[in-house]
């Protein structure tokens, strides 16, 4: 039985239309107009127990809105979801105990008190038994390497330190379902790596189902085999990360080095980088074999490699196209 089932989930916000200018402000006093903004449209997917899935999309795509509906923070306008057998919109206490939503760059701990005091409050709120509390706190503290932070007031912690203790606090109830919204936002590389490795360990040890949004593709490639890509509230892609390049990466990268000096290679493809004896070419996926064969036949090739473009570029080019029709055609149901 899937951990998360989402069927036709939709969220529409009614927002006032505010036109500029003094007269329009006066007019809005007596006649206010509204428009509906569909933040999430007819979203459907399932997550199996223990799956770690990347949830990707540009800013404003509807990722966070979806996570908020799945964690019971927002009431959907249409459709429904089921998370470990609960309807999130019912907000049952047992459901809220078993699901955690962690948002990067957010503070849910008591600002002026030592971290340990916030953890004690969590223990009471989530009715965690003494033995479980002690063992989890000890284990997570070690995994996140935050032992020396527990006695410090939250306000004295750096952003990265605060994120680690936020994660520690959120996971004290050992939730089997975890929604991570930009957990590494604004953190330096080593801190990102530490949190990534903790999430991987937690998922492995607890068998937790995790849906992760991140603008850092390193998070996604390190943790997720499967990704769901959304754009303007609608799902564009749901499948293996490796398939994403095949579906959306229209170009492949050929790197060619020659002995001696490199002649003009612009006839083979778009030159993205070039030195005296080496060039990087972007070539349409379907023409790669032919172009590679021509390069080998026509130049004195020292080395030649063919690669998929970095996943960041694939994602960026997918969203940058802005072609809704193409996006709709590429949508995977």
């Amino acid at each position, binding site marked *: 039985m899937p951990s998360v089932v989402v069927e036709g989930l939709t969220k529409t*916000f009614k927002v006032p239309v505010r036109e500029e200018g003094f007269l329009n402000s006066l007019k809005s006093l007596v006649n206010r107009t509204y428009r509906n903004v569909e933040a999430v449209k007819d979203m459907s997917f399932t997550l199996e127990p223990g799956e770690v899935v990347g949830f990707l999309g540009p800013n404003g795509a509807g990722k*966070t*809105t979806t996570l*908020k509906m799945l*964690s*019971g*923070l*927002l*009431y959907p306008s249409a459709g429904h979801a089921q998370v470990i057998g609960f309807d999130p*919109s019912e*907000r049952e*206490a*047992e*459901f*809220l*105990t078993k699901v*955690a*939503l962690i*948002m990067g760059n*957010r*503070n*849910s701990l*008591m600002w*002026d*008190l030592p971290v340990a*005091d916030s953890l*004690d*409050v969590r*223990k*009471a*709120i*989530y*009715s965690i038994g003494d033995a479980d509390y002690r063992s989890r706190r000890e284990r997570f503290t070690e995994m996140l390497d935050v032992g020396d932070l527990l006695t410090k007031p939250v306000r004295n912690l750096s952003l990265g330190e605060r994120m680690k203790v936020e994660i520690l606090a959120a996971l004290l109830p050992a939730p089997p379902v975890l929604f991570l919204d930009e957990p590494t936002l604004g953190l330096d590389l080593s801190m990102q790596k530490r949190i990534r490795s903790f999430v991987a360990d937690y998922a492995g040890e607890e068998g937790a189902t995790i849906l992760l949004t991140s603008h850092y593709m390193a998070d996604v490639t390190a943790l997720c085999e499967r990704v769901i890509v959304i754009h303007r509230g609608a799902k564009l892609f749901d499948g293996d990360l490796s398939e994403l390049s095949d579906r959306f990466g229209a170009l492949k990268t050929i790197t060619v080095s020659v002995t001696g000096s490199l002649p003009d290679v612009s006839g083979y493809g778009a030159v993205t980088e070039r030195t005296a004896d080496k060039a990087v070419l972007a070539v349409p996926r379907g023409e790669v074999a032919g172009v590679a064969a021509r390069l080998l036949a026509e130049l004195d090739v020292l080395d030649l490699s063919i690669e998929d473009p970095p996943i960041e570029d694939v994602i960026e080019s997918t969203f940058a196209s802005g072609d809704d029709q193409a996006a709709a055609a590429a949508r995977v149901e």
Partner: protein
Amino acid sequence: MNRLLPIYLVEGKAAVQRQAQYRGAAFISVLGFLIEPIVYLIVWRTVAEQAGDINGYGVDEFTSYYIVWTLVRVFNLALAPGAWDWWVRTGRIANDLLHPVNPYHRQLAGMAGAKVVWITLWIPVAVFLTVLFRPQFSPSLLEGTVFFVTAWAGYVIRFNVLWLLGLVSFWTTRAQALIEVIIAMELLLSGRLVPMAIMPQWVQTVSTWMPFKWTFEFPIEVFIGQLTTAEIWQGLGMQLAWIAITGLGIMAVWRNAIRKFTAVGT
């Protein structure tokens, strides 16, 4: 209840710790709360000195009333107007909505815990006012005990009224204007501005059926010994009734309110 008790204890304890961390700021806050009654006290003492008793209130009665007022004020402090606006508008409430316990309990406990520090800081102010104005009343142990109960009950009523009003923030993120209107009503109908005995009879009648009087004047009158036993029992009954009415109101509105949450700012 078994599940809530540890939450009340731990939240109360954390609130004491928070207030104790900033004891200077807390003391200044307490002084700020007390400026209002001291102004009333000085004005009404002056009036009574010149005009004599007003509906049974002379210099001594006004002095006792407003000095006890200062303690009741510390007890019945609840959410500041605008706190709800901020809490919902900035989306900070989202953190609390993710927990399996209604944030009502955490806030009720947190504000109650803070009062332990505020009441401690009130003591030197009370000593100062007593030396300065020499109030004439000496409550018995029983009156003191009953006062303690009525003051906490007054806190719960006032907390509930403001919480219920705060829920309006889920429909409009500018609920502060409404809260200000209610605070103005409270000023007139609670005994906060003047003892209700000074007010016209019809205002006194209206105030009996509103929650405000039971959060301010009733505990004050209990402490300065102005009520009969029957009136005390009647007042306790009204306090219980208002706790139940406002509590049920919160339960009825809460479920619909959170469905309106747009989580903006989170």
